[in-house]
């Protein structure tokens, strides 16, 4: 059951109440006008009591589903806007209002029309009074008025009243806006009848064949078994099929040999290593934060492993969504669900002087909105940051409503250990701190005179270097200084007026450029003995500390502006830091009531005071999608001791709802694209007007409903796809007529040949050479790059490594540093790491060729591959060539290829012997290494055929 947790006590008066409805009411109060909420709250009661029952009779035809005469009487704004005949109401002038003229019959036709009964005179009087008073505060009418009978607490029509206040008039979302194909729920079309038996077995094939038939396209025959097994291996696990497995498969004539193969690979732990990586593209995964300092995100890899594990376990995709958006807000959070919220942490973040730059927070939310809505729902909600969306029916208020859904979150490291263990850890930690405190104080006491002397020396040194006017200013007694001199002295780094302060002033030091720590100070030998003794004692006490707890870099609800100071944050006067007068706390205390900090419309952090001048925003879903979507109900009990708003959970559950017309479509479309290279909607991140239409809409809808029917199982969807004839077609099929009619193979008359990604190029080379380090998960490794590459990015924790087994793990485990990308992945179109990836480009550039030709990694693996072939194939050159083909290409060479390669080996061998190879064996190895490299460089090796 999808649901909300009640907000807390303040919800008590709405026992059956629905959170969305509650939000709407609050939002109406805040947004009805710019003039403050208390007044509106009063008029709201008046409206409720007196006006609404009357207007409700009108809105059956003028509002909601129907807006006859283009008239919408649900909100004050729309009443004033009127319809085809002009404004319905002239505030303050009832007799001059079309509404009154209509209901009294002065203007024909009289309203309401039959069968709705005409208004009684006293009702007309109420309306007149209301208009004469200026028609106050009825922008909320739409909330409770509806043509359809409303379930208690659940309004059937959830269209938010359009916001309208000075400076912003929200675009009114109309029913016609909801007509866009992607906003309508997917329809489970009947499987088309197909006469050809080959295409009638799997519904996917029927939909594809119907389209092919209608276009006059002839599909390719089934691919040969060697091609198939190589395709399935590369596709599902991103590795090559072992030679003996290929041979066994080729010999296996059982009808289910293929489907068993698919099942086996879906169950392989390597499956998640490949398919999890696709998801990491969507969530713009990186291990560092980018920007100036490109800081490490120390536990990002746990999220990476979570994703791999989720795919391996076939975690229902709707659960996968909710965990990432609100894993901490679940009833029973697990280490996995807490880790899932690292989703919020892996985006690009400045992580320096955040307190001085409040606009960062809004940029981070923008990143989250973009990633969440494009990633899960294929909607560019982020385009509505500064104005209503130019193409899609998404308003700027929708954008801020969406922001409010996430606004409470703060970065929060969650320990991944049982409660008792966490408590024990904290206990020991505080004991150790207590025991070492006096020892540290003693060290400080010993160091103090030295620190003072040291400071004095440095001050004198600095003064000597300063120009005369600064020396004079420093030496002038503080009360005698001119205003300019005062400014001058306070800004000098060595704190000339207050030597004591300098002892606690941290300094930035060369070996720790990202941080600050106290300067080390030299002391006399005798004191040094004492200091060392104390330090040893501290060390001894610290041995009691248990190993650090594993942590998730997750989130929870709190108050971002009250986050503890982090790097670069400081409280010096006049340093541009804004002041924030909110009382409470970074994260709410156990058992306390949590309130999401206020968020104002159009706020962007550039001017903190100006931001407060716009109305406060209440959370909500996208207006265009809430209509007709039953809202989640609020039967979710609050988890004791974890105060949170439940907003993110509501968002996650709304996104992951089967009623959401986009989510299931978006993910099945992505899955399809990851299998075939091109998705049914070729713009998987954009199902809006600027996206491309689906090439086979009926298939997309069918898949989407099937996906939900199968419990959001990604693996079941893949099994269905991969067992289709469509998937099993040959890629090398050529038919001139097909090429002419559909040159880019949009309708899939053959399997699309497509290149594997850089990570897989890397992995299959290691697999072929026999050097793949299969270590599963865990901390990332640093691929080997030349020092010149590291030089370009002096920040971040990237370590220079040498080629070796530690760096020969699968590409998905490579450290992903935003500011310094591994050239081999980058050159093969690694997507931008800062923005959710819609689909990877496939470009062909000479630098790719250079990488394959000359990169050390390549050359080293070529030699290993050569050694492997020599070992496995014996002395016969032809057999060696065959073995090379079996290992790398899963097939035997053709006669032409055999001859070409025999000649090549001979030539290279002769060259080696003529150029220093000491023995025939050495020459064989040199020649075979050259051959291995040719094969690893070849197109066939890095393409899924």
């Amino acid at each position: 059951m999808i649901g909300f947790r009640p907000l807390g006590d303040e919800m008590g008066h709405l026992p059956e109440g629905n959170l969305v409805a509650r939000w709407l009411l609050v939002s109406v109060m805040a947004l009805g006008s710019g003039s403050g909420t208390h007044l509106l709250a009063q008029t709201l009661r008046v409206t409720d009591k007196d006006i609404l029952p009357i207007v409700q009779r009108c809105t059956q035809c003028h509002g909601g589903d129907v807006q006859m005469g283009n008239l919408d009487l649900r909100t004050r704004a729309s009443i004033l806007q009127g319809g085809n005949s002009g404004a319905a109401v002239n505030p303050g002038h009832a007799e001059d209002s079309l509404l009154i003229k209509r209901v009294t019959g002065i203007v024909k036709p009289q309203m309401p029309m039959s069968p709705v009964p005409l208004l009684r005179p006293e009702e007309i009087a109420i309306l007149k009074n209301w208009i004469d008073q200026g028609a106050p505060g009825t922008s909320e009418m739409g909330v409770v008025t509806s043509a359809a009978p409303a379930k208690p607490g659940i309004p059937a029509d959830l269209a938010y009243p359009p916001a309208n206040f000075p400076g912003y008039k929200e675009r009114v979302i109309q029913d016609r806006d909801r007509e866009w194909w992607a906003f309508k729920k997917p329809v489970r079309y009947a499987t088309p009848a197909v006469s050809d038996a080959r295409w009638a077995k799997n519904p996917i094939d029927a939909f594809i064949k119907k389209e092919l038939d209608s276009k006059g396209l002839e599909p390719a025959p089934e691919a040969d078994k060697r091609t198939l097994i190589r395709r399935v291996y590369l596709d599902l696990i991103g590795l090559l099929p072992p030679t003996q497995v290929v041979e066994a498969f080729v010999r296996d004539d059982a009808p289910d040999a293929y489907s068993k193969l698919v099942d086996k690979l879906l169950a392989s732990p390597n499956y998640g290593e490949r398919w999890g990586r696709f998801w990491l593209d969507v969530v713009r995964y990186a291990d560092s934060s980018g920007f100036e300092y490109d800081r490490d995100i120390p536990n990002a890899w746990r999220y990476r492993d979570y994703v791999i594990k989720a795919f391996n376990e076939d975690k229902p995709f709707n659960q996968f969504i909710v965990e990432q958006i609100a894993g901490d807000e679940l009833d029973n959070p697990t280490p996995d669900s807490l880790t899932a919220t690292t989703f919020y942490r892996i985006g690009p973040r400045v992580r320096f002087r955040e307190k001085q730059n409040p606009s960062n927070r809004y940029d981070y939310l923008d990143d989250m909105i973009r990633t969440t809505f494009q990633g899960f729902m294929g909607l560019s909600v982020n385009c509505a940051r500064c104005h209503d969306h130019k193409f899609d029916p998404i308003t700027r208020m929708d954008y801020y409503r969406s922001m409010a859904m996430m606004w409470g979150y703060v970065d929060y490291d969650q320990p991944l250990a049982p409660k008792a263990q966490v408590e024990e850890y904290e206990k020991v930690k505080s004991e150790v701190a207590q025991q070492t405190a006096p020892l540290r104080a003693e060290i400080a006491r010993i160091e103090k005179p030295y620190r003072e002397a040291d400071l004095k020396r440095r001050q004198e040194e600095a003064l000597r270097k300063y120009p005369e006017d600064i020396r004079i200013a420093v030496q002038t007694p503080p009360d005698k200084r001119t205003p300019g001199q005062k400014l001058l002295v306070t800004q000098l780094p060595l704190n000339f007026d207050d030597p004591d302060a300098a002892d606690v002033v941290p300094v930035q030091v060369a070996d720790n450029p990202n941080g600050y720590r106290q300067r080390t100070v030299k002391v006399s030998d005798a004191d040094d003995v004492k200091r060392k003794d104390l330090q040893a004692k501290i060390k001894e006490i610290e041995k009691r500390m248990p190993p650090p707890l594993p942590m998730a870099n997750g989130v929870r609800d709190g108050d971002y502006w009250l986050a503890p100071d982090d790097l670069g944050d400081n409280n010096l006067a006049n340093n541009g830091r804004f002041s924030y007068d909110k009382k409470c706390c970074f994260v709410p205390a156990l058992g306390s009531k949590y309130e999401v900090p206020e968020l104002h419309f159009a706020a962007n952090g550039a001017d903190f005071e100006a931001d407060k001048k716009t109305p406060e925003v209440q959370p909500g879903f996208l207006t265009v999608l809430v209509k007709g979507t039953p809202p989640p109900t609020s039967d979710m009990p609050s988890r004791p001791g974890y105060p949170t708003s439940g907003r993110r959970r509501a968002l996650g559950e709304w996104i992951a709802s089967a009623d959401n017309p986009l989510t299931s479509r978006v993910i099945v479309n992505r899955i399809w694209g990851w299998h075939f290279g091109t998705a049914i909607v070729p713009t998987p991140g954009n199902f809006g007007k600027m996206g491309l239409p689906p090439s086979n809409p009926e298939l997309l809808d069918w898949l989407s409903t099937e996906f939900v029917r199968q419990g959001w199982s990604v693996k079941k969807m893949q099994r269905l796809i991969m067992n289709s004839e469509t998937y099993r077609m040959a890629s090398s099929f050529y038919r001139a007529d097909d090429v002419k009619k559909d040159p880019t193979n949009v309708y899939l008359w053959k399997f699309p040949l497509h290149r594997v990604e850089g990570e897989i190029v890397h992995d299959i080379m290691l697999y072929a050479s026999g050097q793949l380090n299969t270590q599963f998960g865990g901390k990332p490794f640093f691929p080997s790059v030349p020092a010149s590459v590291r030089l370009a990015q002096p920040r971040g924790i990237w370590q220079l490594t040498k080629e070796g087994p530690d760096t020969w793990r699968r590409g998905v485990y490579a450290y992903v540093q935003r500011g310094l990308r591994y050239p081999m992945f980058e050159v093969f179109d690694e997507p931008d790491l800062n923005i959710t990836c819609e689909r990877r480009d496939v470009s062909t550039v000479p630098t790719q060729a250079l990488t394959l030709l000359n990169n050390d990694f390549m050359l080293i693996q070529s030699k290993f591959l050569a050694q492997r072939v020599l070992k496995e194939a014996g002395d016969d050159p032809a057999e060696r060539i065959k073995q090379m083909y079996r290992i790398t290409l899963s097939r035997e060479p053709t006669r032409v290829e055999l001859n070409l390669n025999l000649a090549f080996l001979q030539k290279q061998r002769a060259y080696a012997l003529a150029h220093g190879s000491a023995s025939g064996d050495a020459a064989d190895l040199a020649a075979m290494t050259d051959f291995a490299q040719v094969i690893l460089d070849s197109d066939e090796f890095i393409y899924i055929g």
Partner: protein
Amino acid sequence: MDRSKTSSSLSQTSSSTKRRYLSRRDFWMNAGMGIGGLGLIDLLNRDKLLGAELGQACTASADLNSPYAPKPPHFKPRAKAMISLFMCGGMSHIDTFQYKPALEKYNRMPMEGHGDIVVRQGNPGPLMKTPFSFKQYGQSGAWVSEIFPHISTIVDDLAFIHSAHGTSNDHTLSHLEWNTGNILVGYPSVGSWVTYGLGTVNQNLPAYVVLFDQRGGPYGGPQNWGSGYLPAAYQGTVFRSQGDPVLDLSPSSEYTNLDRERSRLDQLAKLNQEHAERYPGSSELSARIASYELAYRMQGCAPEAVDISSESDETKQLYGLNDPVTEPFGKQCLLARRLVERGVRFVQLISGAYVNTNVTAWDAHDSVDSNHRQHGKEVDKPITGLITDMKRRGLLDETVVMLHSEFGRMPISQRGIGRDHNPGAMTVFLCGAGIQGGQAIGTTDDVGLNAEEQPTSNHDIHASILYLMGIDHKKLTYYFNGRNMRLTDVAGELVPQITGTPKKA
């Protein structure tokens, strides 16, 4: 094997590069591949190369089915190429090209009447006069401080925009603002847009080359020349200061050599051709085959492009190569000229490295005097040499050269003798591409805190650069994220004094 020095009996002259191509042709022909086997490779072009002179061999165009294929501009361009001289760290406008007598008058007095003062670090200090002497130069009477004794001699060729301004006082964000148009990460760099829009006339070299300071990369590192949401093919290629100019240009000798590689390439072409025949009409596979050919050419042409041994002593001295202080940036400047000469579309040189920021970059928090004197000296002669050399070779007419930084610096002091970041104002200069020299465009207030007359944003300057290169900045778009994205987002007004277009009313 040094590829540019392969000998061949077919060669009619001793020109090393010519021989390379002859031997290359020889090898293709001997391989028995014939025209069909060459895929998309343009044999005619190849034959033209045979008789070409050294420089031309690597300049020649090869129109391939590649992302870099030349594309027509929107209108007749005034510049074919661009050189960006980026002063990393924040070059002070009021200690270089903007003389502010008010700073002398009010030296060490609080800055008043300019609203709230936002500084990046520490407490705001009092106003501070420049430690440098200023003089007027040329017919235009442009003010230049003593740290640029050479640039001061060419001011009549330069158009100064004194009212450039940005939005962030953060180094990296401002780097991105000026190099990609947006203070956020993930946006394509100017060079990426230009190569995406125009392609390149020389496929033998990367279309977009970056030479960063030999001490290290700039703030934000490679994000400054990244392709953002444009295809990865359009990102800048770093030319390294030592060893092979391009990463993986040649194999490390520990493992193999170029002789063996040539033979491998031959074999690879044959096997790829066998494979491609199973996929008739696949332009992707044809492009891959061609890309190896291009890579091979680049292996010869990139080292040739950076080989300055053929430059005269006079030229080398012009760029300051005879002085260890000016030599590193001088070499970058000379390479920039050589690259542009060979058809490279966009070159960015970066002076200043994000290593020890107060020392290795223009980030004069600690001392304007020592910092700017040092960095000024490092670039003054090289930049002057570059512009002078380009001019006398006729290259400047069709190249736009721009000097800029991520922001200017504050008129108030920091730590007594330094200056903090100031996105409110900086000086940018442009020259070449027929831009009227000797102009002073826009002004700042009396102390140089903020742009005053004709405030000019990054978008305005980017729009103007694209204009000079024949591109309408409103029409150069790439579909991403649900809309057609632009370098200039939804902004950008041409700077009329730069583009010669009518002033906006």
